């Protein structure tokens, strides 16, 4: 591994480098022009747009870089795009968030943190070596701990960061221990290598299972899957809305990408050939599939059932995002490229609808200083546009046509049925019916119930509305014309080595 290879590899991670550069610049800008918050926002956005542009260049690249540490492949690129898009949206959102702007003295650090989270996640999706996974996970993690505590003066924000820290550090520690066990079993940390060793069948069942479950603890915490989700509601509620939104989309996406790659590459049994094209089998004796089935069912069910009881919209959305993770996990259990593709499609639509709903919640709490569901009464009258938008986002989260959310679920169930997992599919749809109830509770309060006395209309600035529409339009458009999206996702399941 000599220098020119390294340099050549560096060109492959240009997007990440751009973002790193941007965050340094933002930090410096913060030092020199502390007052000019606008500038830093613009800097970040420009950097991110650059990164996005470079990413589009990488769509067709499929190489393993840095001596197998990092994979640059359509799969990674797809998720990087999702992450960068989310980051851009969040950066713009932050511009309108009162609680962020209140911290104008440290606004530079804020953008710095968001960007470094972005970097960490971008590396996460590509990393194909356990130690890389751990490092990138921690990079994303550490920054999120700090970011969720960004509004330091607020008690709940601080508490959120502490809980996130302790829980995260613990989970990643357990994960690390699992990694060490796998290292002990296979003598390597490179996931492809691990797979090679496992294929020789030397690995002992129980140790391997224990190790993989330790890994799942780490992943599960990242994607907030039951029973490793406990931090989620508290942190989501405590953290600034923008950060919550970011965590619920980007961080989840990164976690999923990492998990999917890890399991596919590590545990696939390439010797089994008599399967339908596009599907695969796991190495005999590795019960990861069953584990994930159990986890996903628990996740969606618990997420939905507890969400029924939430009165804080932010917290409600936290639980809803747990449930959503449950649906996405269903895409993994079918063990097929189309299952993965379904998850990826889901993430794209999830990006729009979830960010959208958090954005609206943020705007509203800016004005009415409350996230309690009862304070949403009569919003339909006070601010029609926002209410309708939120309603559409929530309906999309429920998964009703003609919104994009339906397509996400549709793809998932499509692959489940194709894999003849009817029972699981039934559980899934029943869950989506239950979920309807709490989503509709919000809608009901906005439209069906009026406030005791009408407290005037709420207006929002044009930029705010534009950002809203740019999230709303895709949510509707993708619901009817998902041709390219699905095609792109199905192209992007391509990983290094597969």
């Amino acid at each position, binding site marked *: 591994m000599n220098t020119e290879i390294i340099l050549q590899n560096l060109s492959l991670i240009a997007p990440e480098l751009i973002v790193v550069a941007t965050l340094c610049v933002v930090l410096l800008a913060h030092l020199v022009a502390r007052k000019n918050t606008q500038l830093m926002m613009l800097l970040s956005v420009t950097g991110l747009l650059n990164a996005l542009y470079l990413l589009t260049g990488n769509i067709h690249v499929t190489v393993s870089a840095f001596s197998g540490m990092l994979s640059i492949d359509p799969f990674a690129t797809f998720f990087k795009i999702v992450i960068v898009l989310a980051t851009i949206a969040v950066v713009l959102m932050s511009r309108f968030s009162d609680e962020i702007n209140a911290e104008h003295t440290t606004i530079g650090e804020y953008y710095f943190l968001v960007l470094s989270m972005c970097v960490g996640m971008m590396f996460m999706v590509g990393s194909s070596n356990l130690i890389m996974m751990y490092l990138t996970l921690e990079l994303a993690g550490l920054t999120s701990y700090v970011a969720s505590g960004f509004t330091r003066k607020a008690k709940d924000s601080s508490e959120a960061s502490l809980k996130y820290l302790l829980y995260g550090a613990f989970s990643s520690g357990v994960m690390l221990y699992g990694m060490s066990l796998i290292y002990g079993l296979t003598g390597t940390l490179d996931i492809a290598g691990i797979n090679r060793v496992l294929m020789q069948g030397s690995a002992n069942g129980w140790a391997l299972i224990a190790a993989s479950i330790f890994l799942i603890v780490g992943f599960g915490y990242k994607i907030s899957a039951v029973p490793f989700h406990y931090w989620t509601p508290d942190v989501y509620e405590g953290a600034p809305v923008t950060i919550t939104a970011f965590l619920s989309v980007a961080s989840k996406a990164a976690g999923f990408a990492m998990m999917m790659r890890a399991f596919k590459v590590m545990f696939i049994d390439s010797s089994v050939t008599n399967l*339908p*094209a*596009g*599907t695969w089998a796991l190495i005999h004796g590795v019960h990861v599939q069953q584990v994930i089935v159990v986890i996903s069912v628990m996740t969606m069910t618990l997420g939905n059932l507890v969400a029924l009881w939430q009165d804080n919209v932010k917290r409600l959305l936290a639980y809803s995002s747990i449930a959503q993770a449950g649906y996405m996990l269903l895409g993994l259990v079918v063990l*097929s*490229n*189309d299952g993965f*593709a379904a998850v990826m499609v889901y993430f794209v639509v999830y990006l729009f609808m979830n960010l959208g709903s958090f954005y609206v919640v943020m705007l509203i709490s800016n004005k009415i200083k409350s996230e309690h569901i009862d304070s949403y009464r009569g919003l339909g*009258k006070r601010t029609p546009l926002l209410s309708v938008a939120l309603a559409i986002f929530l*309906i999309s989260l429920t998964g*009703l*046509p*003609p919104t994009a959310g*339906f397509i996400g679920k*549709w793809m998932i*169930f*499509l*692959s489940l*049925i*194709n894999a*003849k997992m*009817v029972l699981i*599919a*039934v559980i899934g*749809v*029943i869950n*989506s*019916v239950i979920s*309807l*109830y709490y989503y*509709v509770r919000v809608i*009901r309060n906005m*439209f*069906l*119930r009026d406030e005791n006395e009408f407290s005037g209309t709420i207006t929002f600035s044009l930029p705010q509305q534009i950002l809203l529409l740019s999230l709303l339009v895709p949510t509707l458009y993708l619901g009817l*014309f*998902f*041709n390219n999206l*699905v*095609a792109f996702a*199905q192209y992007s*399941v391509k990983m290094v080595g597969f």
Partner: protein
Amino acid sequence: MELKILNIGILTWLTFLPVLGMIIVLLLPKEQKSAIRWTSLFSTLVQVIFAFLLFAKFDRSLGGVNSAATMQFNELFNWINIKSSSWFGIIKIDYYLGVDGISMPMVFLTAIISCIAVISSWNIEKSIKGYFALLLLLDTGMMGVFVSLDFFLFYIFWEVMLLPMYFLIGVWGGPRREYAAIKFFLYTLLGSVLLLLAMLALYFSVSVIDPVTGTKIHTFNMIAMMNPANFDAGSLLAGASTYWRYVAYVAIFIGFAIKVPIFPFHTWLPDAHVEAPTAISVILAGVLLKMGTYGLMRVAFPIFPDAAMYFLYPLAFLGFVNIIYGAFCAMAQKDFKKLIAYSSVSHMGIVILGMAAMNTQGMVGAMLQMFNHGTITAMLFLIVGVIYDRAHTRGLDDFGGLMNKMPGYSGVMVIAFFAAIGLPGLSGFISEAFSFLGAFQTFRWLTIASAFGIVLTAGYMLWTLQRVFLGTLPEKWNGLTDINARELTMLVPLAIIVIALGVYPNLMLDVMNTSANTLVDFVKGSVGLAVGN
């Protein structure tokens, strides 16, 4: 059969005209109340005109049902086309519209009822802009369900209609509107998700030769699904009378049964009806309920003939339960609307029974009953609405002697009531008679038992008539005014239809007849086992 206007197929026009109206309505400032009203009215009126056009041009001799060739006014464009992985195969979804004898009357009905609903909503004042927008959206959803031949498209429209309905009940409804609305929403969604799964299972079980590429691809095309030859060997729903086919059929059936509604899934109906504003009750009873039975005819029967035949008797039995049970429940009601709601349950039971007969008279009777019930019950709800607007109560016992006070009103009412009772010369009679005649040939004793419903119906209807219109007028209603022009304009057309179909049912029958035969022959033929009782 082709019919284009401005080079756009008439069915597309019919389906999306309301959306156009909706957009205009949304663009109008909300102060322009009358403008909003007239826009909505206009768009629905045009829809009615187109419906008449369709009705006139419709070729009575073509069967449709399971043969794409004899579907009429077809519009087939590719909508989604994903070169997918080999596991999914190419995902192709078509924008596929077409009508046959089963859907034609429903399209006609939908157009008329929607138009009348708009008229009857004239005195809505509460955020009228949203109201009409949603009403028109609902219209599109309903129309789409009846014209789409692609299962995916069908499902989309099916779901599109839910949300407007939720809001229309929930925002403009009565005191317990929230409860009714969410109940309606949850019930229907529960049904439709089962429908969704069945649809996906079908998708992967059926594959056809793609005209373009010439390869075998899966399809959502309902008509393709009806051809047993298209089921891949070894797929989930392949074969006949298999466990999974029965499961899928039951799933689909529940999906539709909830809409009909069939006992015991009917409990949302009374609540929804009672709470909904008049126009919405009209649409609910007039069109929405028909979607369930329509779905059974369009989807469940032809795609799962084996299961359909296997579950024929249970179906008929449910029909019987609906008839008798609904009638008894209606008899005990004190609320005018609730009474009519339960009478709907009873009358839809007749449709179910007629369908279960699985022979021509039964099927035709059922179809005609769908149409007639649509018109008659619409009239009844409008009548309730008229009196409710004046008296602000629906208690049956609060009234009496309206016959003298409101003669014009009473005249229309008498027609509606006797039509509901099934009086010869009015439309209800023919359809009920045929349903029973048909059913009797398949299920002798069950039909005799069900036919007793006509006595019960006469019982509660006349009782209501007496309590509300006969006797002496309480003083407090001395101020009541007779029916006004607007209300007449929405009631009279329906009355005319009711009488016309009563005297000369062929107007509708010859539209339905061929398709009914085709359907029956197909279902029976593709199973070949004869049904006894």
